[in-house]
């Protein structure tokens, strides 16, 4: 799953620390989300979407894996 979190966060002029504090997660979690190393729970995805007043699909992009 890809996401536009870093792009959206930077557009809002928010630091990782500030976003982490607002969402009550660690800064490392925000970093991992932005790098695509960690996929959030549905609850955290909703919290992020609500924080930026966007739909989940506008932030997280689900790409179906191609079957071999």
């Amino acid at each position: 799953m890809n996401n536009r979190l870093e792009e959206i966060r930077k557009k809002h002029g928010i630091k990782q620390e500030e976003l982490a504090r607002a969402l009550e997660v660690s800064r490392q979690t925000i970093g991992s989300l932005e790098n695509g190393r960690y996929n959030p729970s549905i609850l955290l995805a909703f919290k992020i979407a609500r924080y930026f007043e966007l739909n989940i699909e506008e932030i997280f992009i689900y790409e179906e894996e191609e079957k071999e």
Partner: protein
Amino acid sequence: MKKIHTAYLLAAVGLGLLAIGVYFIKTGDDLQGLLAALPYLSVGLGCVIFGHGMGEIVLQHASSRAPEAAKDLEIEKKDERNIAIANRAKAKAYDMMIFLISALLFAVAIMGIDLMLLLLFAFTYFFVIMYTTYYRYKFYKEM
């Protein structure tokens, strides 16, 4: 507030157990068998409970003096990624433990050790497997 009262109570109970243990070690010369081990057990338990209580007291005092740091600590503890990491590490350790216990069980069985000890190992292994099965069934029903 309730947490700090419990911590003070734990520290007091721990200190009490420690004092009782030390008293019986110094005075109880004629204790035999299991009774002779009780004072040492009391000292050990007392130390653990006292340490736990004191740790909680220090943590509560530090939290009240630095609420920002306490909030950060709380966030780190509840962070879903940290919890996921801890759970994955525990799952890996469980797989390794199951493998190691079965290997150990096999090794001690062919070494011909005391049957009671062998049964104790086997029961521990069986208990762990049953515990896993119980929680698997419980979570299956819940989710």
